[in-house]
């Protein structure tokens, strides 16, 4: 079974393999898990990510997330006192474009992927505030 929490650019993919070796490894890791995710948190994350999880999937996600956080905690072992935070891994700055229109009308191509369209627009379930 796969649970994917998508965010463009970041794709956290927790993969629970059916491979027995992997399973054993996971079980071991769980025993020593430092980060325990409670029911409330998993419920909240589910709402934010618009996921509906079954009870079983919730348990699974709890242990996956705990392990992910453990992994992230590893970074805390490093001394980063003199390291500046980076948001970009390449030493690139100031990439700009000039204010010139270069794109034309590509509506047809854009809408060709839409499950439903009307009057040149995407049709989505009714939204209201």
């Amino acid at each position: 079974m796969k649970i994917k929490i998508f965010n463009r650019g970041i794709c956290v993919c927790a993969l629970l393999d059916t491979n027995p070796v992997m399973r054993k490894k996971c079980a071991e890791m769980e025993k020593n898990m430092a980060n325990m995710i409670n029911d409330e948190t998993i419920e909240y994350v589910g709402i934010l990510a618009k996921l509906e999880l079954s009870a079983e999937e919730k348990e699974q996600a709890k242990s996956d997330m705990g392990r992910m956080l453990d992994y992230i905690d590893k970074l805390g072992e490093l001394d980063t006192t003199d390291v500046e935070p980076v948001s970009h891994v390449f030493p690139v700055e100031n990439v700009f474009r000039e204010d010139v229109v270069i794109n034309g009308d590509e509506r047809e191509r854009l809408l060709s992927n839409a499950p439903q369209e009307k009057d040149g627009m995407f049709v989505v379930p009714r939204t209201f505030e």
Partner: protein
Amino acid sequence: MSKQYETVIGLEVHVELATKTKIFCGCSTAFGAAPNTQTCPVCTGMPGSLPVLNRQVLEYAIAVGLATNCDITRYSKFDRKNYFYPDNPQNYQISQLYLPICQNGGVEIETEQGGRKIVGIHEIHMEEDAGKLIHDEWEDCSLVDYNRSGVPLIEIVSEPDMRSAEEVIAYMEKLRQVIQYLGASDCKLQEGSMRADVNLSVREAGAETFGTRTEMKNLNSFKAITRAIAGETARQIDLIEAGERVVQETRRWDDAKGESYAMRSKEDAQDYRYFPDPDLTPIRVSEEMLQEIRERQPEFRTEKMARYREEFDIPDYDIDIITGEKPLADLFEAAVALGAQPKKVSNWIMGETLRLMKEREVDAADLRFSPEHLAKLIALTETKQINSSVAKEVFEVMFEENTDPEQYVEEKGLKTVNDEGALKKAAEEVIAANPRSVEDYRNGKEKAIGFLVGQTMKAMKGKADPGAVNRLLREFLQK
């Protein structure tokens, strides 16, 4: 109400920048195009597409920051604000949370008591606008148009420094004026190129700590803002007086009903999980870049006012109004440059222009007539080719359609008749037809002459110079 309360207000003002293209792609930002015809993979959030910052957006944001006394953040970057809504195809908005481009500024406003105060600006950040949702009542669904998706915005976040609706409006007018002077936006509230969210709380007068605040959205005119502030202040005071608590929430103002209602349910928790956008590179603002922008800053209102006082012989009151809106100042200067007398131009702006703008709800930015045509109209009246009432009539047409006044006057035959014979004949006829008024005038009733002038003008179909008619009638009646 037994206790005295104080209203505390902070604003988040969104301003749509006047760039030709969107913030991260080369799609046009032109208004009014057919739905989804100004879109591309970047602004519709297609996987694999990469955003690149429009340099003009950065320059406008810095220019606004400099003009509002902000510190420019020398190392700045973009962050993703995550939320799910169909107007946002990426499921996140690219914005700035951690290192906004401008910080710690402020502008001076006039208070109702005639004093001055500084409204602090906490930060100004760059971000992208969302698409537009249209609700289809017939089919019970919503339609999405992404033309506006990716249109550049700056969000100006004030400190909670305002205490009344009047101060809020003074602050917004100040921002609008500065931004219009920079040419960074037309700042039209009705069309949404300037939008304000009002953060408001109340507290007992003299209290040190702030009360719980609410945020109000959907305010698209100064009138709506004033009403919403009054409504929300009263609602919060009622809650407190009744011993209840104000809940921190986002509310939508319904101006037609004159009340606000809570917008988001618990299902839409406001947790945006911001993180740095890895697709965009950081921005390092160099000293040279800053210097270049500084040098390009235009003449702002205070400098313009000083110059007008030096150069033109017009009242301070006129200077105040004309420089209050950049388009009016531009119109004034252009017409004067074409040779029209400053006082005359000022009179047309202060009188008929403002009157028609108010009557027809036209923004200064939307004035249609050109300075050339205003200068021509002034020349026509100065040379007495048309009289003042004809001039007003021509101006109304010009105001609507930017008609050439010379051509219009010619075509409609509105030129003042300088035919002495025709005028004399008309005057004699009017005198003969109105013995009562003639009698009154001769008995010392000065007012009676006005009626006779009116009748003569009518006989001349308005095409006479009223001054000349007046003189001629007096001459005849003295005989």
